[in-house]
């Protein structure tokens, strides 16, 4: 019988190959395109012109602003809606809370385009469609990304040690005080990972703004698409992608996503989401 021995390094090979082919090489190409221009013969030359062009164009900066605005408001409402739900689910005494959790999550697994199309009809019945493009877009985004907020919050709230709450209670803290000084800080990892999970895609998910905002709102994702398909300018398209990447990086940095804190190990599950 032949016995196979794989070292750890060898076990990593499939992932390394995948990563190189589909993540690293494309990223390098995007970087290459972002900081190059093209002469008449199609030869590339190094240039910062796309970069300057982006930051001196009113319409592009406006689109950046619109995307940030929509992402911010979407994240805020997702948090406001998801926190109580996650709290109730996680802290309720029921034994089978995961069944309840699934009740919240499973409908979200329906095809995304289908759900947005259905939502469009619903908004039409309410009378929002065509009149409140921004409101509709935010509703659609919140609807779409809510599970990404609920799950990490649920995870971190569920893992919270009950004895801490009891201790706060024993020591005389009222409910508001307990929430602000015990529950909220302990659920911070969940909040941060939820915020990152919602903020990022809502800057680029242009299917929602196109379908529910009747293409009246352009967000960065749509702009990238226009540069690649309509304007035939992959360089500017790549640069906008890089700018998005930088924004993601900054958000992660601010929200502490890179922190490797040992005593936050309980929140590791939350960060996975």
């Amino acid at each position, binding site marked *: 019988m032949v016995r196979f021995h794989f070292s750890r390094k060898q076990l990593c090979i499939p992932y390394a190959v995948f990563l190189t082919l589909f993540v690293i090489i494309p990223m390098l*190409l995007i970087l290459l395109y972002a900081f190059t221009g*093209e002469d008449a*013969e*199609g*030869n*590339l030359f190094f240039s910062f012109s796309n970069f300057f062009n982006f930051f001196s*164009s*009113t*319409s*592009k900066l*406006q*689109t950046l*602003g*619109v995307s940030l*605005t*929509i992402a*911010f*408001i979407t994240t*805020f409402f997702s948090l406001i809606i998801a926190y109580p739900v996650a709290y109730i689910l996680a802290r309720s005494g029921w034994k089978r809370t995961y069944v309840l959790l699934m009740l919240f999550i499973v409908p979200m697994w329906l095809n995304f385009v289908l759900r947005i199309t259905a939502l469009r009809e619903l908004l*039409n019945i309410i009378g929002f*469609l*065509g*009149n409140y*493009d*921004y409101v509709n877009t935010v509703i659609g985004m919140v609807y779409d990304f809510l599970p990404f907020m609920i799950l990490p919050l649920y995870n971190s709230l569920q893992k919270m040690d009950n004895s801490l709450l009891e201790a706060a209670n024993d*020591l*005389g*803290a*009222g409910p*508001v*005080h307990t929430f*602000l*000084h015990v529950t*909220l800080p302990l659920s911070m990892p969940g909040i941060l990972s939820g915020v990152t999970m919602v903020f990022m895609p809502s800057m680029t998910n242009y299917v929602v703004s196109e*379908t529910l*905002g*009747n*293409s*009246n*709102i*352009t967000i960065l994702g749509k*702009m990238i698409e*226009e540069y690649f*398909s*309509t*304007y*035939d300018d992959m360089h500017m398209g790549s640069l906008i992608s890089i700018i998005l990447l930088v924004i993601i990086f900054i958000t992660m940095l601010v929200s502490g996503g890179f922190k490797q804190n040992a005593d936050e190990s309980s929140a590791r599950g939350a960060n996975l989401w």
Partner: protein
Amino acid sequence: MRKIQRLLALAGAAVIALSSSLLFAACADGEEKQVLRIYNWEDYICNEDDEEAGYVDLIAAFEEAYDCEVEYSTFGTNENMYNELKINEGSYDLVCPSDYMIMKMIREGMCEPFTEEFRTSSLYAQNVSPYIRGIFEENGWDKYAIGYMWGTMGFMYNPEAGDTIAEDVQSWRVLENEKYRKKSTLKDSVRDTYFYALACVYEEELAALAAEYEDGSLSETEYNAAITAVMNRTDEETVEKARVYLREVKKNIYGFEVDSGKNDMVTGKIDINFCWSGDAAYGIYEAGEEDGSTLAYSVPDYVSNIWFDGWVIPKGGNVDLAEKFLDFISSPDYAMMNMDYIGYTSVLAGEEIYENWVLDGYAAEESGEELQSLIDAGEIIEYDLSYFFDDDPDSGAYAFYAYASEKNGMLGAQYPDNSVVARCAVMQFFEEDANNRINMMWEDVKGAEIPIPAVILIAVILIAGGGVYLFTKYGNDWLRGKPKKGYEKVENKDK
């Protein structure tokens, strides 16, 4: 750039070569089948067998008739198609771009010419409409391209949306009208909407030209050349005017769309849709099927666009097999079936199509006295399609009686009458700097402003969040309030 493209192409070619060699090894039929690689718009050919509806899968039928293999793929926009052709040079035998893209491709030498034999004696050459042939010759496309489908642009509208809507949509500027606020759409496509904007900003100039044509001081050819020149202006002043106009109109419309518009018309979300005639035909048909309601299509006054999609053979394509395919789908029977299936109008004319499609579909059934009384009542009109079916556009040999409602119905959408095509301009291909200018104009038009309520909301959220944070940090005593019953507050000496 070139290098990367070459690398990608190489990788692609390797994959294709590998898979096709595997495929051939698997069939091991002995003789190698010829392959025709077609690149067409989505949903733009009948490729479904349906005996009940009388549809034949044209691609499968061709494969069988010529013992070859067809690799069929589709694209969504002209620009996507063009990029794909640039990246994968030599990987298609037959593509179907629109007018201005055909011009661009011919200009850049990307097309293989058709053979003399095909241009003179194929089924296409025998059946193509003289009108379409004329336009292709005028523009110098006839060597490299043949037509497939054609149509106009105009408004699909709901006749019940207002008492005056039928008159209102005769002006392109109806979209500024407060009466139809948030009830109309434009195309989310820079070429079409730019064309629309020019029709509006040059309305007076176009009206003056129309008047000159009307009183005979301009011939039809001169008139058409004049409006075509106006509608293809790209100077800075024009682009700026278009930008200002579109930003203004944007406030009054429902939104931009490329394919949801016809369904939104059918479901009644909007009342006016700037659209291609083929989509209008589809919408009118669907609305009738759905709930028996009627929609109408009309081409506004002074100017419109006449567009074509045509077949070209990219450099290095298999000319012989491509021509066989085009000949195959150019038989009148297949052309009618294709029209029925996809809803657009074929460039092919000929007796069979006139009789079995136009007359069968649209000619009034009444005759004799009954007919005369309906004509007098204005319910039946004479409809002349000689320009399309006859070599002599004024012969009147292809005039027939049709119900007046059809003028703004399916018939008008499928076959515009002579007066409409006289005021139709062909879209030209723009030079690169003009194109960039128009693209930037479009980006500006599509960009939205940050709404002030949203800014206020964000400010409130930030202030409230900051407030909570400060309270939890410094406002302990205030927030804690009184301790719970039975507890006493103790000063924390460590602090």
